[in-house]
């Protein structure tokens, strides 16, 4: 009976399972990169573990190749949801010649894919936010049915660029959605030293558009909020700010030791209620997932990640002679 009341946000059974699969893939890719880095097979890894609900739930709304995605370095789940493959992710991890994101020039996780309209980003925090606003400005001026989603963390809310961009979008009522993955930390800096508010979504009011805070451990709640924002944008009603409360289960990056600043109890508590665990329970409750199905999904994901890792590991590095290319248009 309880099952009947579950709001699945209009997603079909197939889609619900697809969401789950993408969450698992995000998790597995993140874990694999961390492991490979520790094995010395790569110099740098960033993990999206814990952010799967925030990332897959929101990006699932996007129309690949039509809408625009402006990710940040943690956006593994966004990238795979919009259509990047496990191979694409691993090719970047290994900095390979044929890495579609950057040909090994940018760090891993700096996803870019022109056909999918995933925009190349940098490492400096928040510089992508005005880009998203500019893309949305062009969509509006050109009269195109396009929505731009831009992703960033709680730390990024402190930057001037985030402010300037959100204000610009508010003034021009642009079809852009600001998605803040609030995981309570900017590397080691706790949110209490980042902002003096409970919910940073309140800032949207100061720019004249709605801001909402959603539970990132509830992937469908995230999806619903993103869908509503997407619809508002398409309807010409302007931007929305979505704060997704989440948590990263791994250190900030392979350069970080989070035991310096987070108690293991805190991490443990969050991992009890994280989005994958919770969504799995829901899917079971809905009768969409049994042990067999779960195992088969896990096998599929593991196979994909294995295959992608092998492929990328053996792929050639960039040719040094090409380093001078593409500085300017050719």
């Amino acid at each position: 009976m309880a099952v009947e009341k579950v709001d699945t946000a209009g997603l079909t059974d197939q889609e619900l399972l697809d969401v789950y699969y993408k969450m698992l893939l995000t998790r597995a890719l993140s874990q694999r990169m961390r492991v490979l880095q520790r094995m010395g097979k790569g110099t740098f890894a960033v993990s999206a573990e814990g952010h799967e609900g925030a990332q897959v739930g929101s990006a699932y709304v996007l129309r690949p190749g039509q809408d625009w995605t402006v990710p940040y370095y943690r956006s593994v789940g966004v990238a795979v949801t919009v259509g990047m493959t496990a191979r694409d992710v691993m090719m970047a991890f290994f900095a390979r010649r044929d890495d579609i994101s950057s040909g090994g020039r940018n760090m891993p996780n700096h996803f870019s894919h022109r056909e999918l309209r995933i925009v190349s980003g940098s490492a400096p925090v928040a510089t992508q936010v005005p880009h998203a606003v500019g893309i949305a400005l062009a969509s509006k001026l050109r009269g195109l049915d396009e929505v731009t989603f831009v992703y960033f963390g709680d730390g990024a809310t402190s930057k001037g660029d985030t402010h300037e961009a959100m204000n610009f979008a508010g003034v021009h009522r642009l079809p852009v959605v600001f998605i803040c993955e609030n995981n309570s930390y900017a590397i080691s800096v706790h949110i209490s030293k980042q902002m003096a508010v409970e919910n940073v979504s309140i800032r949207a009011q100061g720019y004249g558009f709605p801001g909402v805070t959603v539970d990132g451990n509830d992937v469908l709640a995230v999806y619903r909020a993103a869908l509503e924002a997407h619809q508002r944008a398409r309807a010409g009603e302007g931007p929305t700010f979505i704060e997704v409360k989440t948590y990263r289960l791994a250190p900030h990056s392979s350069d970080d030791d989070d035991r310096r600043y987070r108690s293991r109890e805190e991490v443990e508590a969050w991992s009890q209620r994280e989005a994958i665990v919770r969504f799995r329970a829901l899917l079971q409750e809905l009768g969409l997932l049994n042990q067999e199905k779960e195992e088969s999904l896990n096998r599929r994901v593991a196979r994909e990640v294995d295959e992608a890792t092998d492929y990328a590991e053996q792929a050639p590095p960039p040719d040094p002679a090409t380093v001078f290319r593409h500085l300017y248009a050719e």
Partner: protein
Amino acid sequence: MAVKTLIEAVREAMAEEMRRDPRVIVFGEDVEEGGVFRATEGFVQEFGRERCFDTPLAESAIVGVAIGASLNGLLPIAEIQFADFIWPAVDQIINEAARIRWRSNGAWGCPIVVRAPYGAGIRGGPYHSQSVESVFAHVPGLKVVCVASPYDAKGLLKAAIRDPDPVLFFEHKRAYRLVREEVPEDDYVLPLGQAAVKREGKDITLVSYGMMAQHALKAAERAAEEDGIQVEVIDLRTLRPLDSETVLASVRKTGKALVAYEDNLFGGYGAEIAALIAEEAFDYLDGPVTRLAAPDVPISPFSPALEDAILPGEENVLEAIRRLAAY
């Protein structure tokens, strides 16, 4: 051919390009009303507020939004009201605009133009007088233009707008109404990266750009008349990519090089020109590679007495020519 001021040439170049290509838009502070220097006068009337519009007062967003719009099919001209106010946008220019094509291995491009009035001599004080070109000319991935000549400005601005990469276009504000010259009505484009030999000469090569190139020309005329020294004056126009061939060929001919710029001497753009000459034309040099530039204090003090004390001009160039010729 009509005689035009620099600001007229700039306005004409933008208007022609906007007529030619609907993807060209211009935005910045006060541009709807015509801009504080009147560069966009009449644009709202002709092109509407969809193609010429005011932004909030936020330079980093102005450039950042331009970058984004350029990724989605537009050709934005972002106006920074004074070059002195470009500093908040440096992160967007250096970390983003300059690197997006390279870092995406050619997948994305950033065809923006950032226009800004620069330079001193208008009693603007230390925040309406700065020369900022050296910072940007140093950055791979950018193109940088400095102009004071109306003819060059029109042709180069059109090239900048059509260029597929980010171009910083600095117009010397003192020249806006002061410098006049014949400017064709028609559609001409001057290639970026080509210096202009504005005067030929056999004795000294004088490399300059912007307002200093104007001073240089006058000083060269006087050196010829008063001292019989024949100075070859090169206006670089584009600082990046640099037309090093024109510079080096001239120095190999004259054997003496004077580099003149309005910015502070130490670490200014002219240092690169001097270094280039000292390395690549060493065997041809008959005298020290000489630089003339502003001394190392903020440009400019508001007080006329102080500004006049530091700002290099025609007289200083002439003096430097004479000193180098006598070497």
